């Protein structure tokens, strides 16, 4: 007596497809922030000549725009932060108009922003530390703690005209972003 050969059905392959759909969805959603942030950090580090270095951008135009939704009315300075070898010191000079220094974690969260209303005439001394590194701030320094070793600093200064941009270039000339071991 011959045994009935069981025909392969669609049920198990469909369940497998549904499982891959859920996994693919969750994995993609989870990876998007870090992938996009890594691309941004890589571009910024290249423009700055390395990590933990501040780069001052030119006036934003359609021809030189680097990132989505940048504003032509702002003068941007950027620093790709890597705290794996220790804290980073940042100095932001006082501006005559709107200025802000925004710190972003590796997952794109804006973890801290300091604007010119809280920056004294002597400028702002900021110590950036990772959540797992010891704090070694000087008196008067603002301490910013990032939840990850990698992050970004984005400084915005209001510069809606060529004249304003020229003024901003002078204001930000002494700004810096550097590792503490660089000899402060």
């Amino acid at each position: 007596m011959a045994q009935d050969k069981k025909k392969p059905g669609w049920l198990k392959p469909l369940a497998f497809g549904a499982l891959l759909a859920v996994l693919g969805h969750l994995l993609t959603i989870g990876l998007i922030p870090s992938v996009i942030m890594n691309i941004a950090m890589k571009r910024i580090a290249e423009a700055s000549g390395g990590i933990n270095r501040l780069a001052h951008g030119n006036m934003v135009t359609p021809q030189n725009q680097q990132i989505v939704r940048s504003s032509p009315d702002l003068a941007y300075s950027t620093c790709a932060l890597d705290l794996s070898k220790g804290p980073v010191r940042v100095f932001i000079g006082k501006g005559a108009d709107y200025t802000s220094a925004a710190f972003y974690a590796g997952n794109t969260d804006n973890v801290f922003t300091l604007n010119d209303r809280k920056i004294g005439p002597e400028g702002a001394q900021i110590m950036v530390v990772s959540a797992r590194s010891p704090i070694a701030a000087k008196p008067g320094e603002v301490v910013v703690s990032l939840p990850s070793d990698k992050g970004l600093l984005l400084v915005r200064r209001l510069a809606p005209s060529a004249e304003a941009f020229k003024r901003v270039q002078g204001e930000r000339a002494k700004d810096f972003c550097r590792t503490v071991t660089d000899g402060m």
Partner: protein
Amino acid sequence: MWRWLICGVLGLGLGVGSALAVSGGLFSDAKLVSGRWSTDPTVGAAAANPWLRATIARVGLLALTKEETVYFNRDVDDDGAKLVEGCTYALSGEAIPTRWWSITIYGADQMLPVNTDAASSIDATRALIAPATTWTGTLSPTRPTTPGPWLSSKGGGTYSLTIRLYNPQSVEKSALQALKLPSVKKVSCTQTPASGGVN
């Protein structure tokens, strides 16, 4: 075997595709509306869940929190029609209770339209010159003959506008909804523009 392969490929494609669609903001329901302008208060904030975090990474990367800056967007005129390069619009606005504001035009790719008009934005310092409390301007692909600030849509295709409100007096929902943000009224159209995609 081929059943497993087909279902696996389709499933993976569906999973990745749906993640990209969701994170692109297509199904965002966290909108706050003021006239034809809308904003997502979670932009720039530490998102509560992975979907919002992915959306923010794609459409609001390196944005500031609402206490620092509120970003309102629109891709339609006052009558609800899509903003398109082939049309000319009259802009009008008044003083806004914020420290400074600017309006910027972005194409469907979220980048400034590529042109050499040096008119990708209008800001408070140029539009509202004291003692004026109201302003009028033009949004068009060619330089207007009328006075007032100009926002060039040349090369924009189907585009959107973003108004940045720096250090707004209040970020309460009711205060943001009550803001009298600039109007965008269609004046004329010279051609039927091609579709530029979703903004």
